[in-house]
């Protein structure tokens, strides 16, 4: 993605929005124990998750991933870690609770995480290669062969800039 392009700014706006959204949600839970009232079987599912401490785990994970996105540190890792919770929220809100507002917030969660994951996934292009050999994570830098491994393209200087 070219620094200074339209998509560059929009993606960073979404990153900051999603990061703040997650961080606020996680910190609010940590400070107040707030759990939204969810009607029906959706609420029973959330209560069951709380009973086995999965809900608490997800809330503290939101603090971590929200901070990572908001401060732009390991954003791709944050998006991957958050994705299972996002799918859960999407499914629960869209198909189980399905009240008018949840029909918005469920797809919104999937849109935010999904579009960001798509925007950052150029760094893991190998996932769509049909045949890859094993490569340890710590040897991953050897997979990058383009100049982009140094950072982002800054066309204003017509040069690669350390990112």
């Amino acid at each position: 993605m070219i620094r200074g392009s339209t998509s560059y700014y929009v993606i960073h706006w979404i990153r900051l929005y999603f990061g703040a959204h997650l961080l606020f949600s996680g910190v609010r839970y940590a400070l107040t124990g707030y759990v939204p009232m969810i009607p029906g079987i959706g609420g029973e599912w959330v209560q069951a998750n709380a009973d086995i401490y999965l809900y608490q785990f997800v809330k503290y994970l939101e603090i971590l991933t929200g901070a990572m996105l908001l401060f732009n540190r390991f954003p791709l890792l944050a998006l991957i870690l958050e994705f299972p919770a996002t799918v859960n929220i999407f499914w629960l809100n869209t198909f189980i609770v399905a009240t008018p507002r949840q029909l918005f917030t469920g797809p919104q969660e999937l849109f935010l995480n999904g579009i960001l994951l798509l925007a950052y996934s150029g760094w893991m292009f190998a996932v769509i290669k049909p045949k890859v050999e094993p490569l340890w994570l710590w040897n991953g830098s050897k997979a990058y062969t383009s100049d982009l491994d140094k950072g982002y393209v800054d066309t204003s200087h017509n040069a690669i800039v350390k990112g």
Partner: protein
Amino acid sequence: MDKGKWIAVVTCLLLTAAAYIGSTGLFYTEYRPIRNYDLVAFAASWTGLIYMLIRDKNKKDR
């Protein structure tokens, strides 16, 4: 500010409007005032965007 940056700002305004409508229920369900949860996310995203636009303002527009 070149055309691309203005399009980015307009896109972010549209995203803000969509998030506002979605959260409050405006036009489609029982209205609920905007929450601090949403306001904090709007503040962070707009502060960051404005910072980036100011940071990049001296760079040659393309």
